């Protein structure tokens, strides 16, 4: 079987996935998506792209559009464009988690800057403002009062992208100084770690210096992780959870999951589990 691993920034994860693909006996290759030029106005065959593809581009829109093109060529892509779309937009993820009755932090959307104070009044302070697209904790901001929130909104209004002029506001969940990252490959939880925020930081993202420590999730958490993964369409995912006073909350599902941090704290090979799942998708 020929597996094409698509990337736009080659990291440890992509190299590890290629190595595990080869260990599993498939012909795995790395393909830089930035160099692709694809004719899309007529149906095309997937010449040179193998039997299935693993989408690892870190640019959300590049991953989404390329996956849609490849799917149009009848190529199986993991994750699918639908999953990429669902996870790449925090509003869509929240809608799907809510629809599946999965506990998630209380969230409001204000479609104009003028209605942000109303959403804030409903949520109370402190609250968290997040961009709807983007990751690594970038532009995720904590507002402790109305004045701070107003300043954050004014700054956002200066951005050119009109999507940034709609506001995703979330309750600030009182939790220990850590959150939970589960790496999911199909029906398997490949790894589960606590991510501890570094000193002087409230965000736990590994990209922000968060430290990972493996643990075995209890049954309740396992069930929530599986349900959250299914709610967005399933695949190779990073499901993020928090321990609130009222129980677990799922706050994010990532479609191009980074697992270097989790692997450093985990004994089993995460890329091996991912590759086994991906190859099983190619056999269907």
């Amino acid at each position, binding site marked *: 079987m020929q597996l094409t691993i698509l990337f736009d*920034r*080659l990291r440890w994860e992509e*190299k590890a996935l290629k190595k595990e693909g080869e260990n599993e006996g498939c012909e795995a290759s*790395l393909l*830089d998506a930035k160099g692709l030029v694809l004719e899309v106005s007529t149906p095309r065959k997937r010449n040179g792209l193998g039997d299935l593809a693993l989408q690892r581009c*870190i640019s959300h829109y590049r991953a989404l559009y390329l996956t849609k093109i490849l799917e149009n060529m009848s190529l199986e892509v993991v994750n699918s464009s639908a999953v990429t779309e669902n996870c790449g937009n925090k509003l869509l993820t929240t809608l799907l988690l809510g629809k599946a009755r999965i506990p998630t932090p209380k969230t409001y959307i204000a479609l104009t800057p003028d209605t942000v104070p109303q959403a804030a009044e409903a949520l109370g302070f402190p609250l968290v403002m997040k961009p709807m*697209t983007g990751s690594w904790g*970038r532009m995720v901001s904590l507002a402790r009062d109305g004045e701070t929130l107003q300043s954050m909104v004014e700054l956002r209004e200066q951005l050119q992208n009109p999507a940034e002029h709609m506001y995703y506001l979330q309750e600030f969940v009182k939790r220990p100084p850590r959150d939970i990252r589960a790496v999911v490959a199909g029906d398997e939880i490949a790894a589960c770690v606590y991510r501890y925020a570094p000193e002087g930081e409230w965000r736990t993202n590994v990209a922000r210096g968060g430290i990972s420590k493996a643990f075995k999730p209890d049954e309740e958490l396992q069930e929530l992780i599986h349900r959250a993964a299914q709610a967005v369409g399933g695949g190779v995912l990073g499901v993020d959870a928090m321990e609130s006073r009222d129980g677990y909350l799922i706050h994010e599902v990532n479609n191009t999951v980074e697992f270097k941090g989790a692997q450093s704290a985990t004994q089993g090979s995460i890329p091996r589990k991912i590759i086994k799942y991906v190859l099983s998708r190619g056999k269907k």
Partner: protein
Amino acid sequence: MNTKCAECDGPINVPNDVIVGEIVSCRDCGVEYEVSEIRGGVALLKPAETVEEDWGE
């Protein structure tokens, strides 16, 4: 396989087993480069893309 930074002339260490697409950075100024080609055992570099709003997991 070492080379020099186009920005500051500082040293860039390029591992011998580097492959096309990998990112290397200047030890002095931190500018990142992407390996665009390996020709005759020499890694050719181009400036790496900078972080965009939609980058992430």
